[in-house]
């Protein structure tokens, strides 16, 4: 199993380092913007002339326009989601469907390696990769706050955000891995993963902006990700964490069940 994890590291090293640097740089840049612009005044001007949808979005995501609210929004920004979701989709899509497509899985599983070990190797590496990129992003926020003299969130709130975002991305990873266990082509599996992530993100965005659609938020994975509550108020929804963890566990169990029973390649 160690052999496979090492191989995954060698194969994905450049991609993961690039994703970590971009996410860390993005969060650091957000601190620079908050420190150099009078954000609340700028937001007040924007909301004055903005269309209702944009106004609602700003008021929902950055209430009061305080530095901590803006930095919390930076953790709900599509850039942050896209970078982490790219990792959460690429790795599982390659893990089973990708290796079946290239044919390498035939020779790999002809070694004295159980399917459980193969599955575990990809799961362990995927979780470590998500933690690495997410950790780099949080480091960007912490260093940026320190560097620009912005009041820090503190280790407890950053740790809570880490857990919440990690579980959200793990849920996307798990559902993509389940698709990978059923699939034969990495490209199609990746498209399925992207669809799940985008639909979930959009449902949450619409439910946040439109009161009549608010009920749908609970049905979106992203609806259980609450960076604003965690970073600005220190509130962690245990129920949201439990829902994401349960979803990820069920999807991983489905992925393993299918993988352990299917014919390969």
């Amino acid at each position, binding site marked *: 199993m160690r052999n496979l994890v090492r191989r995954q590291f060698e194969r994905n090293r450049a991609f993961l380092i690039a994703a970590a640097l971009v996410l860390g740089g993005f969060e650091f840049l957000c601190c620079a913007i908050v420190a150099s612009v009078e954000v609340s005044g700028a937001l007040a001007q924007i909301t004055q002339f903005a269309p209702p949808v944009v106004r609602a979005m700003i008021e929902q995501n950055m209430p009061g326009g305080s530095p901590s609210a803006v930095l919390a929004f930076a953790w709900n920004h599509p850039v942050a989601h896209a970078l982490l979701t790219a990792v959460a989709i690429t790795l599982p899509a390659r893990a089973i469907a990708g290796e079946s497509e290239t044919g390498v899985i035939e020779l790999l599983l002809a*070694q004295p390696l159980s399917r459980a070990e193969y599955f575990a190797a990809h799961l362990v590496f995927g979780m470590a990769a998500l933690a690495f990129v997410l950790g780099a992003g949080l480091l960007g926020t912490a260093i940026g706050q320190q560097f620009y003299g912005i009041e820090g969130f503190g280790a407890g709130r950053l740790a809570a955000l880490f857990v919440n975002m990690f579980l959200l991305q793990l849920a996307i990873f798990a559902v993509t891995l389940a698709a990978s266990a059923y699939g034969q082509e990495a490209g199609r599996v990746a498209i399925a993963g992207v669809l799940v992530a985008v639909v979930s993100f959009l449902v949450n965005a619409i439910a946040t902006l439109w009161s009549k659609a608010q009920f749908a938020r609970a049905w979106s994975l992203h609806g259980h990700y609450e960076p604003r509550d965690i970073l600005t108020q220190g509130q962690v929804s245990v129920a949201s964490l439990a829902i994401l963890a349960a979803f990820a566990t069920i999807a991983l169990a489905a992925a393993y069940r299918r993988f352990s029973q299917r014919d*390969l390649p």
Partner: protein
Amino acid sequence: MPAALEVRDLRKSFGAVAALRGVTFAVEPGEVFGYLGPNGAGKTTTLRVILGLVRPDAGNATINGVECARPESRADIGFLPGDLRLYADMTAAATLDFFAAFRPSRPPVLREKLLEALALDSATLERRIKFLSHGTRQKVGLVAAMQHDPALLLLDEPSNGLDPLVQRAFRSIVGDFARRGRAVLFSSHVLSEVAAVCGRVAILREGAVVALEKVEGLREKAAELEDIFLRYYLQERPGA
């Protein structure tokens, strides 16, 4: 002492297509066993069942007495797939190390000898797989399959892409394997190749074994093995 490989009444269908219809044979230690059949006869499916990649609908297979579904059955085997795929971004040397690492208790004792016999030099080993020719990749696959001196060697169309000189060296290596008590399952559709290295042959047609004999026995039936093969292939339908 159990057979190196024992296959009993294997059956497998993919939808409406019956790929294997009750395949039974055994390979003993010290034997090179030919598994002969036209494309689509079920040779690769049999190998995949033996490797635990495909689950049979009925029947079973054991390697040295261990059920093939269990990963430990693959501890002392070597395998070369018919359509060999390796990690394109790895060097040949890294590829050999990668596969050797799956068996920490079985060091690659034959690697140097095989590299020499198959004319793989150190410069070639440092090149990435994607820059190697088909034949050179096949040589790397052969070394990866045999470097740990396995008790059972499963070869699916092993001489694909090898030039005649290397083919001769390869046949000599396989013969040497058998003389040291190793078992070899040699799957191929090339009659001359099977006749040159194998002691016994099973002829597979549409998922069923239609002949299981010593090569000499087949030769007694006709001067040319091709005649025998075509007779089984064209006339004797499974279950007829």
